């Protein structure tokens, strides 16, 4: 339990720090939110003053923060300045979309990277390895927005297998939902799978040189069994760490892809809100992103101990 407790405290502290910093940063942005809301024609001095009063923009920063925090603790993240939609509702609508695309990208990336990385390491220096290496470097060099445009050109415009844009809720029509999610997920996955393949390859090469593997070979175990049963697990630590970090950055990576594919995700919401000085929305989204990053990293830490008995037992012994 101490581990969980420590983590819970860390989570709360992180969220406080993040939300306070976001508050400070958004206050430092030039451009008065009240003026943004009113627009030039309506932004007379009285109108601006009235809106600032309504939004409490004239209160000291700390007062506003404490006020916001008080609401947030009760689950009320306020309403958007721009759309008047409750911030919590907006995030609840969009987060699943971003998560689905991000997770689908992750699954695709891992499903391709694990066999590729393993094969590459097994025949390190061989023809297959060189082909895989140069291909992954090539893919790595293509930014996600470029990949997105290429994918649209091939799969939507030329082959017309998948829609270029459009989003159907999972609950409405799972097949259409998957069709809509595939291209955005693929364009995110391409860059990631290249990184994963490279990582797994180098770790796997080290593992394959260890005595335990030589031992397994000597015992006459089949290659497939050695690679996926004995070598993969100890080789996947770096991969696991990077996957954890990547999950945290799903929202960041989603911004461009969500805009290109016109997908209603949280990344697009964040960018629009920042540019329109929708501080309430920015604040809420930043909080949720921070929370998910912390939770994911915590989960990754737990997974380490599953992967590596030494961590598990080491902790158990000191507890």
């Amino acid at each position, binding site marked *: 339990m101490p581990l969980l407790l420590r983590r819970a405290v860390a989570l709360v502290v992180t969220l406080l720090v993040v939300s306070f910093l976001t508050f400070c940063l958004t206050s430092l942005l030039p451009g008065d939110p009240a003026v943004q809301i*009113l627009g030039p024609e309506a932004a007379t001095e009285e109108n601006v003053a009235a809106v600032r009063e*309504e939004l*409490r923009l004239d209160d000291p920063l700390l007062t506003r923060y404490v006020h916001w925090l008080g609401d947030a603790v009760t689950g009320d993240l306020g309403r958007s300045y721009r759309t008047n*939609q409750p911030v919590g509702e907006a995030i609840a609508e969009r987060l699943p979309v971003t998560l689905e695309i991000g997770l689908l990208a992750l699954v695709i990336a891992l499903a391709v990277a694990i066999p590729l990385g393993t094969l590459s390491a097994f025949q390190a220096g061989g023809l297959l390895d060189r082909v895989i290496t140069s291909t992954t470097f090539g893919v790595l060099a293509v930014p996600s927005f470029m990949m997105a445009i290429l994918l649209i050109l091939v799969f939507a415009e030329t082959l017309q297998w998948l829609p270029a*844009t459009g989003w159907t809720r999972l609950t409405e029509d799972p097949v259409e939902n998957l069709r809509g999610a595939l291209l955005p997920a693929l364009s995110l996955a391409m860059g990631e799978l290249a990184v994963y393949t490279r990582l797994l390859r180098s770790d796997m090469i080290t593992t394959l040189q260890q005595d335990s593997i030589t031992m397994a070979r000597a015992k006459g175990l089949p290659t497939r069994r050695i690679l996926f049963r004995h070598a993969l697990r100890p080789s996947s630590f770096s991969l696991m760490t990077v996957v954890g970090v990547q999950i945290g950055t799903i929202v960041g990576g989603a911004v461009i892809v969500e805009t290109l594919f016109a997908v209603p995700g949280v990344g697009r919401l964040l960018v629009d809100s920042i540019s329109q000085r929708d501080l309430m929305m920015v604040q809420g989204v930043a909080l949720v992103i921070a929370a998910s990053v912390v939770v994911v990293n915590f989960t990754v830490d737990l997974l380490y101990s599953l992967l590596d008995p030494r961590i598990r037992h080491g902790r158990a012994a000191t507890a």
Partner: protein
Amino acid sequence: MGLRRTRRPRLAARMLWALVAAGLVAAGCGGGGDDDADAAEPTGARTEKSEQGDPVYGGSITVGLEAETNSWLPGEANFANSGITVALAIYDPLMRRDADGVVRPYLAESMEPNDDLTEWTLTLRPGVTFHDGTPLDAQALKTIFDDYLKAPGSNLAADLEDVEEMVIVDDLTVTYRLARPNSAFPDSLTLAAGYPFSPTAAAAAGEDAGAHPVGTGPFVFESWERDSQLVVKKNPNYWQEGLPYLDEIVFRPIPDEDTRVSSLTSGDIDVLQTLRQATVSRVRELDGVDSYEQLGNNTGVNIFNTTAPPLDDIRVRQALALAIDREDVIEVLGGTGLVPPSSQPFGQDDPYFSEAVDEAWQDADPETARELLEEYVNDPNRSDGKAPGEPVSFRYDCPPDPTLNELSQLYQAFWQAIGAEVELRQVEQATHVSEAMAGDYQAKCFRMGVDRDPYPNLKSAFTEGSAANFTRFTHPDVDAALEELAASTDIDERKQLVEEIMLTVNEHYPVTYSGSTLAAVAVREHVKNLDGWTFPDGTPGSGVPGATVMWGHVWTTE
């Protein structure tokens, strides 16, 4: 506890300065340097459409929009063109422009002024109801006016500032009482202030009214997922017999220009709207696609702060204007062969476009420009307080965008060539607008113009005390002409006055111009009659101004 607010104001869509980021680079995005064959063709709007045939009932179409809209409640909503086109499915405008640019009653039955143009009496058609069954009567109009449009915080309140009150005359008649004569008043009702919405539905929805629009329009709002799609269904009780033709329309905001075009070619969407010149020329080339273009009242401009040295001196502003070659600017913006150079906020097809203003505007004369600038530089009493002989220097701001970066560099080159020192600065959109309003800048890139009567726009752009007078330019002649303009209903006299205003403004160089903007609606061939809408009495309408469509008149053959 959250913020307790009933409704909140939004960026007014109707202003001379178009402020939306998309609008700012409307003419943008690569594609410059079209080949000579294209350049030889006349610039301006073209409409290429397939055989239209007879109307067909039924079917569903999907429309790709440039942007999402924040809300659908007039007073709260910030209706850019992409928002207006959706609103026109759900709401009916009380007034609308006809093919000749004359404002006529559409949902309203009639609109009559008193003799001195201070009272406008609007009569509604009998028997029209909102989608929720609430009757559209005088009381409904008054509730909307008092409780929403004129309420504190409404973004239409400033626009309706001159309307002192609305008086109910009888069950179907109201009178707008104005503080001063305004011949252009009916024009105010062609946009959001003239989209009646059900007051009962809005009251019931409270803070969420912006997400549940209920109008009288040809289509009934069905559902809205922000940034994804908005669905409307045929209004079976529509007041116009025989309309609409379609059963359903799905509106989808697709902000990226390339993927919006891809979605059209792959068949994900049937219709797209665009204000980007590069997209306009791309969709012209597509097979199986009809394109409806209109040259709107929207032009790229530079604004000069006429109170900030050295730009407070007319010699400097004129020198900078003369240094510019508009054709080069249009090339950078991707509009070569598509759009003509501009000299006023009105496009060539607009009734208020003036040949005289166009001829009077001079540019591409670096010799004269250099002389003017030198005269200022050597003036011992020069306004920037520098010693005679020191070069003029100022800052030019533009939002970060690849096309706008190129644009800024081009202007910098023009002005450096005549001896000015120009510092380029990238300013994010929100800051850009705030600085323009506060007069905290020297020179900025901007866009100018909107499809409505010139009076309210010219008034807000060039009169004392207006928050939208970014250039701080005022002139007694302009004030006088504006007053006359407000008091005149004669179209020829009004054109004359607008011409005088523009001549005076341009003589003082608070702004310089680049090129007009083409707006286009591109449709797959099975979608018909985008621009063929008429008024209930059969008068032909204004087509697809700013790529906005009267959806009730559109049909599909698929």
